[in-house]
């Protein structure tokens, strides 16, 4: 039987060129295994052959990414491997992301790829979604454990066997919908019975924390400040000429309120699938309080109100879309020299 062909990516240190002083070493490729490739050769066994080792200096890779990456992929293509291994990179802060980038690019070019890193390596967060990153110790002292773990995963992958983060020791890439042999209600009863007996249960939903954002500094001088109104209540113009969606929004809209003292139901409406819009359509100030905000401004509580209300629909809208709308709105507010924002949510 033909052997599985492997291309291995490592840095200048593991290639035996040298440490930090050699980090500007360029990109090279040699046939056969090199450095940790020797250990992989043993762990992968006789069915595998490391046909080539690509290596590059850590700094060179970072400074010349745009040239280096296509060259690496071209080299990998030339050897037409069954598998690409990168690293392991342990906790190395330049090597890790580079291993991740190589593994990701190999994957996108249609090759299976595996790398290995320590959990705090920035490469994990950047690339765990795109490739298999086996969990390793934080230094090269963990090589003896990392190689067999990565090799075991490689063997399963080339054989087309099913793998999982728990069983195979890699960082979760994502979650996908699967069908099991019992419906949700039955699984719930079985889980409850286990809980009542004091047996351990495995939760089906994991809740990663939401990312925290450093609080912005407060407004020191409100009397001279410029405020803006933003909402996720689905506020739109009367006829919704923007076609703002009532759920799963793909956009936000910019509504002019220049010279207005309140939101008139003749000019504005609500289009939000998550709540009953009747009251909002009768008096839009119940979702965005322009009437009160304008009277506060006239009374001198603050100096200026931005002429645009930014609005979207927060109903089934993906986190990703919400983040990108937020970032765009934030930049427009910065450009308009806004000092503070009042956002209303339904």
């Amino acid at each position, binding site marked *: 039987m033909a052997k599985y062909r492997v291309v291995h990516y490592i840095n200048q240190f593991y290639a035996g060129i040298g440490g930090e002083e050699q980090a500007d070493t360029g990109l090279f490729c040699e046939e056969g295994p090199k450095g940790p490739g020797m250990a992989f050769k043993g762990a992968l066994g006789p069915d595998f052959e490391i046909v080539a080792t690509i290596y590059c200096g850590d700094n060179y890779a970072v400074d010349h990414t745009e040239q280096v990456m296509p060259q690496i992929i071209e080299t990998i293509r030339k050897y037409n491997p069954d598998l690409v291994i990168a690293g392991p990179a342990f906790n190395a802060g330049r090597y890790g992301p580079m291993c991740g980038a190589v593994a990701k690019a190999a994957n996108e070019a249609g090759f299976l790829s595996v790398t290995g890193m320590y959990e705090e390596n920035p490469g994990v967060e950047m690339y765990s979604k795109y490739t298999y990153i086996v969990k390793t110790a934080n230094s090269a002292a963990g090589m003896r454990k990392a190689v067999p773990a990565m090799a075991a995963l490689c063997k399963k992958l080339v054989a087309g066997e099913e793998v999982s983060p728990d069983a195979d020791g890699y960082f979760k890439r994502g979650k996908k919908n699967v069908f099991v042999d019992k419906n949700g209600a039955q699984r719930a009863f079985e889980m409850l019975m286990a809980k009542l007996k004091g047996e351990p249960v495995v939760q089906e939903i994991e809740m990663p924390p939401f990312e925290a954002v*450093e609080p*912005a*500094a*407060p*407004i020191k001088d409100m009397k001279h*400040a410029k405020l803006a109104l933003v909402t996720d209540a689905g506020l739109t113009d009367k006829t919704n000429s923007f076609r703002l969606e009532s759920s799963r929004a793909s956009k936000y809209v910019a509504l002019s309120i220049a010279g207005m003292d309140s939101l008139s139901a003749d000019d504005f409406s609500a289009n939000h699938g998550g709540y009953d819009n*009747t*009251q909002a359509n009768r008096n839009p100030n119940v979702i965005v309080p322009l009437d009160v905000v304008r009277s506060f401004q006239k009374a001198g509580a603050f100096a200026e109100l931005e002429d645009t209300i930014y609005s*979207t629909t927060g109903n089934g809208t993906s986190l990703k879309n919400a983040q990108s*709308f937020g970032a765009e709105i934030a930049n427009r507010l910065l450009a308009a020299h806004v000092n503070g924002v009042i956002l209303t949510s339904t």
Partner: protein
Amino acid sequence: MLVKEIERVGIPAVQICTILPIAQTVGANRIVRAIAIPTPVGAPNLPAEEEKALRESIVSKAIRALETEVNGQLTIE
């Protein structure tokens, strides 16, 4: 989520919302409690004057939140 992106660029942003645990879980820095989901700053069952006063008190709290130094999470009920 929107307030977080706005705060990220350094502009203080207060979220007026009814269901506080959501804003707290998602990680808003400045939160003011609203009235009801369909009418966060309204109470259509109240007489117009009282409703306006309620709306004013919520907007006042929002302005106060923008003037407040925040460590962690500020929630004004």
